[in-house]
């Protein structure tokens, strides 16, 4: 089932090693600047490293699919007796794994850096609450929901890109024009998704509130932080979630998955 994942990850192994070594070296260099540079500058540079690394991962994720659509490896992948769904799910899993591995290292070094800055320079992100306490104060429902949302948003983004690539490849035979066409299709698909989601949430405004902090945590937050204590503050009342909007997002993901899988299995001419 997941045989392509193995080869896709193996293929980017060297890039991964280079990327992770670079993240480690740059963050170690930042650690040597503690007490020499202002803590805000060190954190800013750490965020720049994270941002650049994430951009590179997104490029990898897109290339993972575009390579097998436009280059010679298409003959390797699409002559195998595997369905479009199988190929696509393997690409999505590989992309998420690439993202998670890099995110793990970025998060690890950011946490180390923040902790070191806290110990040496008393850096607290402008909040008088430690990172550990903040995490323990958040409700498990909110953590689960956050992971769910991040996954859904990223999978939705990947599928929008992959569907645009597949449509661009099928509709436009010229490679350069195809890539421009892909970009235009991507923009159009994004606009359609946003418009439909907004329209549906306006027609069906029903939703529910999801509490961010448990009672004790929320109290700590309002006691320690600078947040304005009123009932409209989402840190206290929770975040409002629209059921129809979430449902439409999920429907879009399913539709884009099946559309892309169908195109690469039945419409792609090499």
């Amino acid at each position, binding site marked *: 089932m997941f045989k392509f994942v193995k080869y896709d990850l*193996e293929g980017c192994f060297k890039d991964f090693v280079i990327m992770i070594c670079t993240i480690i070296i740059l963050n170690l260099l930042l650690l040597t600047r503690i007490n020499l540079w202002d803590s805000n500058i060190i954190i800013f540079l750490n965020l720049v490293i994270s941002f650049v690394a994430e951009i590179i991962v997104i490029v990898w994720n897109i290339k993972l699919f575009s390579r097998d659509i436009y280059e010679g490896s298409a003959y390797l992948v699409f002559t195998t007796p595997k369905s479009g769904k199988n190929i696509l799910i393997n690409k999505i899993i590989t992309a998420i794994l690439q993202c998670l591995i890099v995110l793990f290292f970025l998060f690890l070094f950011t946490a180390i850096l923040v902790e070191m800055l806290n110990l040496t320079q008393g850096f607290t992100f402008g909040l008088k609450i430690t990172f550990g306490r903040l995490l323990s104060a958040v409700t498990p429902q909110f953590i689960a929901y956050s992971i769910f949302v991040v996954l859904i948003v990223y999978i939705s983004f990947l599928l929008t890109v992959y569907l645009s690539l597949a449509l661009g490849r099928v509709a436009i035979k010229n490679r350069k024009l195809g890539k421009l066409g892909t970009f235009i299709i991507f923009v159009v698909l994004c606009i359609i998704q946003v418009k439909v989601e907004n329209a549906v949430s306006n027609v069906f405004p029903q939703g529910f509130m999801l509490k961010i902090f448990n009672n004790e945590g929320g109290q700590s937050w309002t006691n320690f932080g600078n947040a304005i204590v009123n009932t409209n503050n989402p840190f206290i009342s929770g975040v409002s979630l629209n059921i129809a909007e979430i449902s439409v997002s999920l429907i879009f993901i399913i539709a884009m998955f099946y559309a892309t899988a169908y195109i690469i299995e039945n419409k792609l001419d090499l």
Partner: protein
Amino acid sequence: METILKCTDLKKSYFRKTALNGLNLEIKKGRITGLLGPNGSGKTTFLKIIAGILRPSSGEILINGNRPGIKTKAQVSYLPDRDYLYKWMRISDAVNFFDDMYDDFDKEKAGEMLKFMNLSEDSKVRELSKGMSEKLYLTLVLSRKSQLYVLDEPLGGVDPTTREKILDAILKNYTEESSILITTHLVSDIERLFDDVAFISEGRIVLFGNAEELRSERKMSIDEIYREVFR
């Protein structure tokens, strides 16, 4: 004799260009068929349709009674006329890839063929010469126990010694249970392999027959018939 491939009035058009224009062909089980024709006659287009990576505009193509798709991809072993392996791969990775993807892949046979072809499993794909790449691709394709082997220019750009090695490999691995369809420009080198020959021009078969019968009827080699047909 059982039919493995049957095409009826097969057409493929790209905008204004017609690549296949009503192609009719039937390939029987256990036969080696040469598909011969000049550049742009529709050979590669036809093979891509058999491999399931190109859709015909109209007409019918049946492989073992099925239209090209996932099921037929498991029965057809296709050698494209271009480099298609990932550049990061070593030969061992390519062998493992085929072993993972195809149930009919015989890893032991692949090992033996690599030795026969003088290829080391540790070699990197991107460092192989044209001839070595051809030998590797053919090893991978012939190591499958497929019902239909579709070879697009297996001798393209390789020296005469390598050519002989490749032809020997094809003959050595051919069984009565499978059929082979080969396209080539090097007719004289490969014609000894053919049981049947199909001459293709402008997207249709202009001459088809048993290779031996064609030779004795016209008192010419297949190479000479080719020159006469496409004069």
